[in-house]
């Protein structure tokens, strides 16, 4: 009897004891060999958090460096000061507001969803001079050599609003923040300027003069190399550790892939009419574009063609900047060729890809030389483009609007896209520096917002 009573008294004690295992607890991130006390992000619009065709506060708050900095703060990371603009619609260099998805009613009364400016004018983000040093030194529009160009703030208002002096360089101001850790993501604009202008500028060249590089040129290799050498050597000399990120191939970016090359869909009768139209203009029979029933390549301008135009071929790109009204109603792409600035022909794509590979090789080589981590975002976006990626039960692709990674300008990232990049950078940091920074949940960040 007594023994039994004891047994039953023992049970509550047993219930506690039988906790054979400790309950699950949160992991504590560790910095490993890295020092996150002062993280400085150097780069262009992608670093700044520019998105939806403007620099605006929501984009800045979700910039990939801001996301990384938040995770570093769990492992001894310090404050991360960004040159935040006031809440609002933001602005691009031309003073336009950010894009939002809008419902518009077409001439035939059917509603459609398309990006449009959130306000008639952008917000004034340039008149207020902000005082650094800043941890986010992402300057929209900056090319590699702009980072080391004294007085660049007088040419680029995004640097002008935060430069420490009229003669300051982006790199110099970044070093004023005393980085113990950095990310460098630059080089995108060195090819994008050429690509987004339809290859109307100078293609890839081995040698050139930075002073001669126009906005629609590809940066010459020697100029790019010199700039990257300067930036990486300066950072390395300061003793900071960090990460170098490479640049994506434009053929994986929705600005270049959204409008299909063969989006001219015709009936047999329309095809016949178009052929007849060109014949009536005196185009000799062999040179008349071969319009057929079904999807056809758009008619694009090409100076190399005897008649100055031809049908686009598979692999050629029509840019997102092409006026949709002109395509639909003004006969662009069928009776009128799409002008050069809105297309990338095969030879131009080859120039861009050659430059991208050369620049990425340089970035990777310098990362290796200085012992920095290297992040191959190019491969990630290629995977997202080819097969999509699944994080937290949500599938991401590089598709425009629905894909989740790219914002409404088709070039810059959504918060969700920034989170994907941030996680990849975090993974590289952990591998290279023995740290255990925590990745973020992709599902916690937004893609394109619908009205």
């Amino acid at each position, binding site marked *: 009897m007594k023994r039994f009573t004891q047994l039953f008294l023992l049970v509550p004690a047993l219930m506690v004891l039988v906790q054979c295992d400790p309950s699950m607890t949160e*992991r504590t*991130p560790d910095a490993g060999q890295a020092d996150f006390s002062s993280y400085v992000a150097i780069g262009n619009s992608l670093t700044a958090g520019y998105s939806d065709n403007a620099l605006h506060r929501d984009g800045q708050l979700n910039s990939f460096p801001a996301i990384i900095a938040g995770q570093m703060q769990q492992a001894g990371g310090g404050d991360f000061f960004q040159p935040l603009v006031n809440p609002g619609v933001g602005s691009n260099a031309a003073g336009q507001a950010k894009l939002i998805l809008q419902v518009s009613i077409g001439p035939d009364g059917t509603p459609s969803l398309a990006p449009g400016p959130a306000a008639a004018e952008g917000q004034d983000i340039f008149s207020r001079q902000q005082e650094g040093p800043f941890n986010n030194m992402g300057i929209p529009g900056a090319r590699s050599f702009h980072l080391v160009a004294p007085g660049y703030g007088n040419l680029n208002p995004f640097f002008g609003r935060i430069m420490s002096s009229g003669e300051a360089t982006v790199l110099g101001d970044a070093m004023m923040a005393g980085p113990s850790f950095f990310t460098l993501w630059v080089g995108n604009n060195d090819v994008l300027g050429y690509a987004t202008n339809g290859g109307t500028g100078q293609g890839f060249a081995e040698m050139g003069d930075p002073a001669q590089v126009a906005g629609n040129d590809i940066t010459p290799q020697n100029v790019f190399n010199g700039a990257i050498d300067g930036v990486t050597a300066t950072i390395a000399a300061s003793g900071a550790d960090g990460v170098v990120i490479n640049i994506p191939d434009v053929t994986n970016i929705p600005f270049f892939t959204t409008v299909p090359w063969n989006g001219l869909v015709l009936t047999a009768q329309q095809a016949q009419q178009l052929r007849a139209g060109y014949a009536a203009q005196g185009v000799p029979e062999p040179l008349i574009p071969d319009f057929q029933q079904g999807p056809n390549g758009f008619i694009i301008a090409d100076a190399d063609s005897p008649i100055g135009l031809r049908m686009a071929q598979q692999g050629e790109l029509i840019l997102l900047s092409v006026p949709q009204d002109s395509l639909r109603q003004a006969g662009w792409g069928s009776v009128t060729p799409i002008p050069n600035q809105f297309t990338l022909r095969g030879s131009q794509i080859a120039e861009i890809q050659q430059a991208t590979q050369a620049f990425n090789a340089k970035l990777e080589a310098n990362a290796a030389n200085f012992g920095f981590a290297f992040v191959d975002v190019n491969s990630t976006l290629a995977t997202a483009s080819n097969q999509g990626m699944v994080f*937290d039960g949500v599938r991401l692709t590089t598709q425009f609007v629905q894909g989740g990674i790219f914002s409404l300008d088709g070039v810059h990232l959504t918060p969700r896209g920034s989170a994907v990049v941030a996680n990849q950078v975090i993974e590289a940091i952990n591998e290279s520096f023995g740290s255990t920074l925590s990745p973020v*949940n992709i599902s916690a960040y937004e893609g394109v917002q*619908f009205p």
Partner: protein
Amino acid sequence: MKNTLTVIAASLLVLCLSATTVLAGGYQLNLLGQRQIAMGHTGVGMPLDVATIGLNPGGLATLDHNALLFGANATFISTYYRAPAPSSYLAKTDSDIRTPFGLYASYDTPVENLRAGLGVYTPYGNALRWEDGWKYRFLLREISLTAIFIQPTLSYRIGDRIGIGAGLIVAYGAVNLQRDIPVDAQDGETPMVELDGSTTAIGFNAGVHGKINDRVSIGVAYRSQIDMEVSGGDADFTVPVSLSGNFPEGNRFDASLPLPAVLSIGLGLKPSDQLRVNLDANLTFWSAYENLVFEFEQNTATVQDLNEPRNFNDRWIFRIGGEYDATDWLQLRLGSYFDPSPVDEGYITPETPDLDRFGISTGFGFAFTPQTSLNASVLLVLSNPREQTEQAAIDAGTYGSVPVGEFQTRAWIPGISIYHRF
């Protein structure tokens, strides 16, 4: 007696140790009666009271009394999710308290040796609500599954030693499932879908009970599978206006969820007049749950039918329990069980983050009067963290539709009942 104690203590230890491997129990709730719960939810081999209508209808006719029983439990269940290393992310379910219940009554029919009974009980159920904005919100926000069985029963005693019984089950089932939809809204609302439906179905519960001698008895019971087929449930989508064309309003869905059959066998021992010991085993035919399917009445490019593999496996649960009459008016109870998961790695979902469970229970019975008693039980359900790796999900072909990481469940389930014999 001492030996019995040693056996119980040793089995507790062994179970504790074995619980270090992966462990579950799907959406089954084994909470049919307080006296049974306190004894590790045993009683198939030894009808203890009228809750045997649920456990083994064959035992009803061999009971030495008729009674009315009403009892209920409160479930305090915490489920945790931890993202794979090095993530510092940890999520838990908000603990909605649910109250499974059991109501049983019996009376003697005019036919000699034939006893009738009615049981109303809740053998299946599930309620999980993950914290707002959790990592896998696109797979599941919350789920609620309720099943109430109403079982009129007849049991016949053959001679002094054998009882047989069977009951018709009328089952009412309701399901509510909510997921976030992976689009974002300018107005800041979180787009989501809520699927809500209910149905009724029928099945049966039958069993046999036999006394081998005054000290030893056995029992076997089988409760049939019941398919809850929801037809025309409500599918409500909360989405931005511009997407309303892709997510039609007033959409409906059909879905089917099996409540699996259970085969139970039990051995009842009476080492002394004051001590009763039960050994039970239950085989739940979980393999009936192959796929979770939701078919929508209106499909669009974005509203596609859902068909996700679940591939549950049949599993045995092993139970041991004892009861000791401390005095004429006080009974002390103790029990334990091991409930291995029917879910393979690769198929663990946020709605049943299933793992091997180890239960220990205790309780008492207090007789106010010779006719009326109060029974109380408390059940502690423990588990070790169970991991689902990315590779396991890829191998199972479920990558992207199941979470990757670790789960752990802990539950406190107190219960109380009033028993009146007449």
